[in-house]
């Protein structure tokens, strides 16, 4: 079974290295188990059009049966911020049903996650963090996939 995710990841990578939708680009995939992508948000005054956001994907051997772990990174150079959004904590953890066990389908992939996140940001109207952000960021030691988010609001 270990071979399953490798073959799938290689195919995904080959496709991503070919074409990607506008505003989504591959930064690195030197390690097949960890990729980084950059994302820009068109047409939303909350997010400057030239400011890319960095996404890190980590894949377990069980991918794509299991969702990848996907977070926004804050970096000094080149500077990358964690986009402000009511479903994105300031430590980069994303609350999106697509990424948890209930909402994940093995048919999803890195590209479809990026597209979902891009449209989630594009349609956002609130420049704010999730409720309880400071406390969550200060106390959370769990990995994103082990968190049971109670707050799923598909309308935001």
């Amino acid at each position, binding site marked *: *079974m270990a071979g*399953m*995710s490798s*073959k*799938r990841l290689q*195919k*995904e990578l080959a496709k991503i290295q070919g074409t990607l939708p506008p505003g989504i680009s591959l930064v690195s995939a030197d390690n097949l188990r960890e990729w980084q992508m950059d994302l820009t948000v068109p047409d939303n005054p909350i997010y400057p059009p030239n400011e890319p956001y960095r996404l890190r994907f980590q894949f377990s051997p*069980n991918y*794509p*049966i*299991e969702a990848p772990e996907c977070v926004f990174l804050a970096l000094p150079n080149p500077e990358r911020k964690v986009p402000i959004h009511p479903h994105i904590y300031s430590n980069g953890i994303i609350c999106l049903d697509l990424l948890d*066990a209930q909402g994940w*389908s*093995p*048919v*999803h992939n890195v590209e479809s996650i990026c597209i979902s996140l891009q449209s989630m940001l594009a349609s956002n109207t609130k420049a704010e963090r999730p409720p309880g952000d400071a406390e969550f960021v200060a106390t959370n030691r769990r990995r994103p996939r082990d968190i049971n988010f109670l707050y799923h609001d598909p309308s935001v």
Partner: protein
Amino acid sequence: MDSDDEGGFNSAASSIELDEEMSSSVDFDSDVELDDYQEDETAFEATAKDLAPRRKAYEVEYRVYSPKDIQAQQDDQVAEVANLLEQPPEATAILLRHVRWNKERLIEQYMDAQEELLDKAGLGQDISKNPPRLQVIDGFCCDICCEDTPGLESFAMNCGHRFCVDCYRQYLVQKIKGEGEAARIKCPGDGCNKIIDAKSLDLLVPTELTERYNELLMRTYVDDKENLKWCPAPNCVYAVECGVKKRDLNKIVPSVHCDCKHAFCFGCTLADHQPCPCVLVKKWLKKCEDDSETANWISANTKECPKCHSTIEKNGGCNHMTCRKCKNEFCWMCMGVWSEHGTSWYNCNRFEEKSGSDARDAQAKSRQSLERYLHYYNRYANHEQSAKLDKDIFHKTEKKMTLLQSSSGMSWIEVQFLEAASQALQQCRQTLKWTYAFAYYLARNNQTAIFEDNQKDLEMAVENLSEMFEKSTDQLAGLKVEMMDKTTYCMRRRVILLDDTAKNLKEQTWEFIVDMV
């Protein structure tokens, strides 16, 4: 003591030996029944009614099931409904799970909107015409693993989402093993709501997982039924059936006794908390948690002797303390002189509300409310702690029982009075503990005064019995009759208190200082 016959009716009265003993000597009017028991048409109802002994106000009807019983119950219901709907058992099982085992609702929906129901349950078309099978399809490429080797076996339900058999299996393993899902596993296709039916699962679930899978299915059956609950004791595999509904929980405290000997509340599944209703238990535990820092020092296991101030550690369940240093005898709970407790025990049991004169001062008021809380908490925690210590003593007593046999020539049966006494103590302490949480929420009136009298009587009986446990082995043989009497007396006081409280609860005559929500 517990019924060995798994199918036999098991009421609270028959599962506690000591209670049974009691019922012959104390006469109660016990035909108090909740009207709702009649509503459920469960398989055992008819026999239960015939066999049911006269119940006390605080006892409820219930039944304990083994995993085998639960499986049989499920199979029976599937077979019955399958017959009615003329559907294969696999589809019927899915439909029943879909409506959370509400037979009536299923039949109604089936009659009204069959197609819609089948669709919603993930049974779109007749699966019996098209049994699930693995297929090899030319040019197939699996969307999950991107494998396209010729001859690759694949599977799809009639939603058409086709994946290779390895991926399908891997997906199911993840759902069953990783996420504990069973009854409502959906197709792996994105956004597809089709539920994988039992026949497809039979084909796909790896054999090493079928046991876990069936176990999970059984779990959902019990979880879905309002009148069934798993025994919360660790590693216990039994489930309990009880007809008490959520809306009745302010009128009755449904304590049940599992065959594993664990007594728990059917309403909230916490350990038995009679006579205190679930809603007050919840409030109380929340309050204790919030106030735990204040409360912690109170429940600490050491205190100073009120006379010579040397530190004294409580090492047994009894509240009658003797200071090693100055021989001062005092009460652990109120720190009062022990000799006064014969006539004025209430000092230890009641909290005299302070006069309202200084209540206008806000600070005094808040201190008074803390004092009031600590008064009840102190006694609550004391009984919890004592019950643990009594248990320790009993383990030592087991050794005493062995010693007693050899020194006095008594048989194993003849020394059982010690075990009976120990069990009675545990049970009475458990009850006493919760009487203090209950009393905390009671308004002051005549009924509360009667309650506190009953509480006081039980408390005194318990302390008397507890004290006997501290006697040495050679004294115990001669105390057998006295100990048995005291055990009986304790249990009688407990029954009186529980019965009285439960009757008033049922009639809703208690006046509480909080809303019962």
